[in-house]
């Protein structure tokens, strides 16, 4: 059995075990879910160690016939990019379960359903990042929405039903456009090579320019909604505000990466010509996202809303890196996806703890936390610093790579992007100053600091933020060949350095 099968099957089995456990044994249910996810994380780390970074081809391949009459296969495999993202997802799930140990209790349907949904979601996350078959990818891409929908709608807060609906409708709309494009691609493959959904077969098709443009848009809009890129982002802040911290981490940290991952793996690989046509527009949209997200983050009065808008800004950086079409930009963007996952996770975790302790999500209700709850304050501080890409923390490496990669081809965009960094310092430092420093705000006096469970949950994330800041090599080693492969396939090379005087 290959690693990928194990990583996909174990959460599914775990969800079955949770399903048969008695309803009132909530502690046992949580322990079972946690144990399952830890096991998955361990196996995934094993897979990462076994991943051969010198090999450019997709690895851990497996192929089973699924629907032979339409040529869809259950075929899995990962390149360095997919491997890095699966690793991130597998590490985040146990952390999410541990950090939000009690968040399932406030929900509509009890603890059991919550963990079943989380574990099913984990299976689908692995599936979506490892599908070698476009049909299979689409199935995971869409089916994934259902557990998230119920996680937001059933366990969130505030106007959760509406937020869940908005999330689902946006994603479905994008998904349906992609479905039309997939069908188009499938029909073309039928004329040229015989019906196939295999990503490698599809990427070798010759498609005329105008068809390519339409198909590209079908895929791209779906991914841009997912990512989310300005102007397709409006569902995200609502969803982030309404979700539990755990759901937000999975949603922004992992699921939204499907969008940027899809841009690299599908948009660029399948439609190299159309990519060239649309790159200028996408670069502009990315820059707008960076600045727009940052400006709105500055104005946010709520912690969750703030994190959502910083994410929009960060996704702008990721898209910018991808469509800079340079090897540094692409590697940086992939690394950014992983780093953003961990840094957002840290922010949402600490933010969630702050909110649940204070009973309010408004930034103005906090103040002087550094004296009351020093450990929580420090954790928030480090998470914030990683969001503004402080050198020494992981986001710095990726942001730097993205900007350098972009500068060699689109200097103006890179300069505007750099403004985003300055704004990032502003939005992070404002909230840090307001909530951590200054006089202790009323209502904050009796706050308790992190307990052991919470410390154990946040420790690996912070460790990773620091570790990947100083030593990103293992990840970059896995990512670089894959990123180069994407570029080589689409026939782009890095621009030659211009000699200065």
């Amino acid at each position: 059995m290959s690693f990928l099968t194990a990583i996909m099957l174990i959460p599914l089995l775990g969800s079955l075990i949770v399903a048969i456990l008695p309803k009132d044994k909530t502690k046992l249910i949580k322990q079972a879910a946690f144990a399952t996810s830890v096991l998955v994380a361990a196996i995934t780390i094993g897979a990462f160690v076994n991943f051969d970074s010198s090999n450019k081809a997709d690895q851990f391949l497996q192929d089973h016939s699924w629907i032979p009459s339409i040529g869809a296969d259950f075929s899995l495999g990962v390149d360095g990019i997919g491997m890095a993202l699966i690793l991130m997802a597998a590490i985040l799930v146990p952390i999410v379960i541990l950090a939000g140990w009690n968040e399932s209790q406030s929900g509509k349907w009890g603890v059991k359903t919550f963990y079943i949904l989380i574990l099913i979601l984990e299976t689908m996350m692995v599936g979506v990042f490892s599908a070698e078959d476009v049909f299979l990818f689409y199935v995971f891409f869409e089916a994934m929405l259902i557990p998230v929908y119920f996680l937001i709608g059933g366990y969130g807060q505030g106007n959760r039903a509406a937020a869940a609906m908005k999330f689902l409708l946006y994603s479905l709309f994008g998904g349906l456009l992609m479905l039309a494009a997939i069908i188009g691609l499938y029909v073309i493959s039928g004329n040229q090579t015989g019906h196939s959904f295999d990503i490698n077969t599809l990427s070798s098709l010759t498609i005329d320019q105008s068809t390519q443009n339409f198909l590209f848009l079908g895929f791209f809009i779906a991914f841009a909604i997912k990512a989310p890129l300005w102007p397709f982002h409006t569902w995200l802040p609502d969803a982030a505000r309404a979700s539990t911290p755990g759901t937000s981490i999975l949603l922004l940290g992992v699921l939204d990466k499907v969008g940027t991952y899809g841009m690299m793996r599908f948009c660029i690989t399948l439609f190299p010509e159309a990519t060239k046509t649309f790159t200028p527009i996408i670069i502009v949209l990315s820059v707008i996202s960076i600045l727009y997200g940052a400006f709105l983050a500055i104005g946010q009065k709520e912690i969750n809303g703030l994190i959502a808008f910083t994410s929009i800004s960060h996704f702008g950086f990721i898209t910018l890196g991808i469509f800079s079409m340079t090897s540094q930009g692409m590697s940086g963007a992939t690394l950014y996806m992983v780093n953003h996952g961990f840094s957002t996770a840290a922010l949402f975790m600490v933010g969630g703890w702050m909110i649940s302790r204070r009973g309010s999500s408004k930034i103005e209700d906090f103040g002087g936390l550094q004296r009351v709850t020093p450990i929580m304050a420090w954790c928030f501080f480090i998470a914030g610093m990683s969001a503004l890409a402080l050198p020494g923390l992981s986001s710095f490496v990726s942001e730097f790579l993205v900007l350098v990669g972009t500068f060699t081809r689109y200097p103006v965009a890179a300069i505007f992007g750099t403004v985003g960094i300055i704004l990032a310092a502003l939005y992070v430092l404002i909230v840090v100053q307001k909530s951590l420093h200054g006089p202790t705000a009323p209502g904050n006096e009796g706050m308790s600091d992190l307990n052991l469970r919470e410390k154990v949950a946040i420790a690996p994330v912070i460790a990773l933020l620091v570790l990947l800041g100083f030593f990103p090599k293992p990840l970059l080693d896995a990512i670089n060949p894959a990123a180069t492969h994407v570029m080589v396939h689409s026939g782009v090379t890095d621009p030659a350095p211009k000699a200065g005087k």
Partner: protein
Amino acid sequence: MLTAPVLNYSLLAPILVILGGALLGVLVEAFLSRAIRASVQLTISLGSLILAFAQLWRTHSQTSLTAAVNSVTIDGASVFFQGIILVLAFIAVLLIADQDNFAAQASAVPGSEEERAAIQSGKQQTEIFPLTLFAVAGMMLFPMANDLITLFVALEVLSLPLYLMAGLSRRRRLLSQEAALKYFLLGAFSSAFFLFGAAFLYGYSNSLTLSGISAAITGGSGNDIFLLIGISFLSVGLLFKVGAVPFHSWTPDVYQGAPTPITGFMAACTKVAAFGATLRIFYVGLAAAQWQWKPIITAIAILTMAVGAIAAIAQRDVKRALAFSSIAHAGFLLTGVLALNKAGLSASLFYLVAYGFTTLGAFGIVTLVRDSTGEVTDLNRWAGLGKKSPLISAMFVLFLLSFAGIPMTSGFIGKFSLFNAAYESGNINVVIVGVLSSAVAAFFYLRIVVLLYFTEPTSDTVTVVIPSILTRAAITVCAVVTIVLGIYPSLVLNMADTFASFLQ
């Protein structure tokens, strides 16, 4: 001298069995004592459906143009259509078996003393069973009919029992009778249109058979005006039956007024039969004239998808909402007609299977949600049902997700195959409208999910009755099929591929 026509009884056995069962049912209704009548009727109905299916299975690989003197064709597609109709009818009969849905004595005037007496004495008439079987016989004949006269006869045989059945609701009888009358009047109109079109096609081609018409079109010697009039009027009759816009206005009223199990039966089986006939007429008879009718049918398909999806959003009654959803699905199925290729036919076959099971399941659940006065179809009163009966709500959500075409349900594979066939045949605009109206329709299905799960229950007491074993079996089968066909569709896809052929 008149020679008796030669009939191949062996090949016609499935229909003959059903007709025999129906006649037997009439006799039972007349002569058997009241106490055992219902159970005998049920046994006869289920038995003849099984027997007919066995006969169909026995002959499933045979093809023939001359089984009944050139008037019916037995080929892969007709066998498949008959098979689906029999299986779906079987499940529908399981739902119909819950006699609480039907008027105790249909002839009694609503609200009259006679009606009250009939209900109090517990005398339940069971004419619904033979009526169902007669309708099934018509439905089986419709997609295999090869000439215009047989088509018309089959259309009437399937419609007349349905007109009656729509009026048999036990509760809200006036609404039910109004629905029946409306259905009858509009149906009679559409039959007239159909007959008118058939006459013109005969005038054009000097032939009643579909292959004769096709040959005349290819020959090109006929009067094109006659052809156009013939095609348009024939289409009106067919499009009325499938519930396509602008001939759809009866659908919501009839779906709402008819007893719910009958609504499910009509929605699932009538659609299979009507699309079976439509596909045969357009693929076999009129394919050669596709440049004349394709633009119009394309427009109708687009309109049907869009109107069905958009109008569904505004509905407050679950049966009306499902009616509009069925209109939208008729639009999707019309893209299969437009495709005019083998992929289109096999995709339509799969879609009809997927849609039929999902529809029956959904209506089966509607029969269970009641208050003291009977079924509750007001959507607002379904609020919070997810809390009261999680299992039933979860199944209903499953059916809705399948209607919406979410992956891992049968509806997704169906939609994918249909759009694929349409794209392959070059009808890309239809695909795009289809995709967009799927998004709109998804909104409507999700609204119901929100009602079930995320809205607090209202104070009034809507309960889910404990389903009888038959109803439970029917709904469970539908749910299982919906999931299995979503995850492992090859079971039916391969079969649809094998059977997707019309004998010319």
